[in-house]
């Protein structure tokens, strides 16, 4: 039994590391966008388009890192488009986000047709297996560099929001557009750049899906991860460090179902497969309050107004 427990624990750790990266990138991107006072629900489309363009460009250029960069650039185009449309008067960022989500996925399917069959070069993992002797752990420690980049980025963003002028400007724009204007900051420009950068990160998250794990391009690749990542931002209260925790938690919870079945605990697998969603609900309920609004929510966000 303890053997089985170890297997499940290791599988959850491995799952957390493997599955969390796209969640992390998309939620960091969305965190930045929302900090500036705008919601971009279109990141699911950006993620899928990023996955497609990364795979396609990696296949055409022979270099997966060029693919990652292409995914980021494609993502920033989507972000820029969202940012540009939303600066127009009386435009709902939520509606535009949903339109962008449909556009991104549809356009990715259209352009991605020819890239389902070919095999593109994938991203290589950093092998940290030499640190341990257990064979299962050796596999779990094949970690993609993007995971570490994501971790570093979260720390930089967390520090940057609190300690840099740019961070202050983004937060100010998000909390009170009037104050920002009084300070001589162009609210639209800040939000445009924040949405563009957010799109870049979501695109990179997509590149991870198609170039590392699960590591192939097809039309069912994302199964809603971009949408879940947007929810993760609220879940982690607009704190980049908490985004890391939330992404890891979701990855680990997602690995629970398959891991339990692999050691023979198979009764009620539907329940275990739903673990990430049940967990979200539980934490949301536990941390919400009827007496105050969402803690940490940027004041300008259309959901808080």
């Amino acid at each position, binding site marked *: 039994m303890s053997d089985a427990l170890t*297997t499940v624990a*290791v*599988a959850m750790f*491995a*799952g957390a590391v*493997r*599955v969390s990266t796209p969640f992390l990138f998309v939620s960091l991107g969305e965190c930045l966008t929302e900090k500036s006072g705008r919601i971009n629900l279109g990141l699911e489309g950006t993620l899928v388009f990023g996955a497609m363009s990364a795979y396609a460009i990696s296949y055409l250029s022979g270099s997966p890192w060029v693919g990652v960069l292409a995914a980021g650039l494609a993502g920033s185009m989507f972000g820029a488009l969202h940012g540009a449309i939303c600066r127009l008067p009386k435009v709902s960022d939520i509606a535009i986000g949903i339109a962008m989500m449909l556009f991104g996925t549809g356009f990715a*399917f259209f352009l991605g*047709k020819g890239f*389902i*069959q070919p*095999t593109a070069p994938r991203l290589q993992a950093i092998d940290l297996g030499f640190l341990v002797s257990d064979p*299962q752990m050796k*596999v779990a420690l094949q970690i993609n560099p993007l995971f570490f980049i994501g971790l570093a980025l979260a720390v930089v963003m967390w520090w940057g929001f609190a300690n840099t002028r740019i961070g202050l400007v983004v937060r100010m724009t998000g909390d009170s557009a009037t104050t920002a204007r009084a300070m001589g900051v162009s609210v639209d420009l800040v939000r445009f750049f924040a949405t563009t950068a957010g799109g870049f990160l979501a695109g990179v998250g997509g590149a991870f*899906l198609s170039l590392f*794990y*699960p*590591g*192939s391009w*097809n*039309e*069912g*690749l994302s*199964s809603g*991860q971009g949408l879940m990542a947007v929810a993760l931002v609220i879940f982690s209260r607009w704190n980049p460090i908490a985004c890391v925790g939330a992404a890891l938690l979701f990855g680990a919870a*997602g*690995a629970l*179902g*398959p*891991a339990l*079945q*692999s*050691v*023979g605990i*198979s*009764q*009620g*697998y*539907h329940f275990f*497969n739903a673990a990430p969603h049940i967990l979200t609900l539980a934490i949301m309920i536990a941390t919400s309050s009827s007496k105050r609004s969402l803690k940490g929510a940027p004041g300008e966000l259309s959901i808080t107004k």
Partner: protein
Amino acid sequence: MSEFLLSRRTLLKSAAAGVVAAPFAGPLERAAAAGLTIGIIYVGPRDDFGWNQAHAVAAVELKKVPGVTVVEEENVPETIAVQKTMESMIKLDGAKLIFATSFGYFDPHMIEMAKKYPDVEFRHAIGLWQKDKHPMNAGSYYAYLHQAHYVDGIAAGLSTKTNKLGFIAAKPISSVLQNINSFTMGVKKVNPAATVQVIFTGDWALPVREAEAANALADAGCDVVTCHVDSPKVVVETAEKRGIMCCGHNASQASLAPKGFITGAEYKWATIYKNFAELLTKGQKLPNFERGGYDKDYVQNTAFGAAASEAARKAATAAIADLKANKPYVAGELKDNKGAVVVPAGKVVDNYDVFLETTNYLVEGVVGSIN
């Protein structure tokens, strides 16, 4: 959008037909009668390395038949959208036979269309048609893929070294359970000590969870995995990455696992499609309820891959020869994995016995549960 498009086109066409047809006595009908147009509708992309690709490969074969025109549409959801697709295939392309290849197309969509267009034949790729309930110009065709999974099991049972095999399945429905059971029966026949660990993912296409499942099985010591999900691409690629062996499902995935591929269970829909086209061209009636396996050349196994041992190839080839001769492979005493007897000792289950299509248990040797 598509509704508008269709009605506008239909309107234009009927208007044009009215103008043109009046003096020339229906050139449109004559044009359609010159050859046979067949429509094929897919629920997903045609090149998914899975269920849809298996049909699309058959469509390519069908296109080679002289006088046959094939019209296809992919990514058609199991909603009213499929009725519009069927209607446009019938009215715009003159389709006389429609193959609806996804489970949810049948009721009510295909049935509605069959009632509306009694001159067109409709066939659905899963055995849901019932004589007293559904129109006679509708029907189903179905291939016993479990026979090919049984062959997979024989080859896999002789290839495994750890005696632990894994099966990643989407949902615990009869056709999936049948494949898991047949695979396991094949394994147990040649290697009674081996077990098959099953993981249900919960849906037909969940690439990340499928990769997690393949990793979890590899971690648990399985050295062969196979699956029944819409697109086995992720499972096969993950197995190859982990350095373990795999068997395919639906279409050929041999190219995805140059080192670890053993063999795979594949449909051969082309046989059915070409037979149906020939019958219609001759003006004969199509069967309403067509089914079969190796004996009718409706299923096949992918050519052996690098991981198939000599013994595995031999035993699998022998099993294929038996199935082609329609020899039954399910016989008593067969127990489920909770110990209850499902086929009593001495009883042999014929390959065409509907008992096989009502599978709601996992056989002995499978580690896992349905709920």
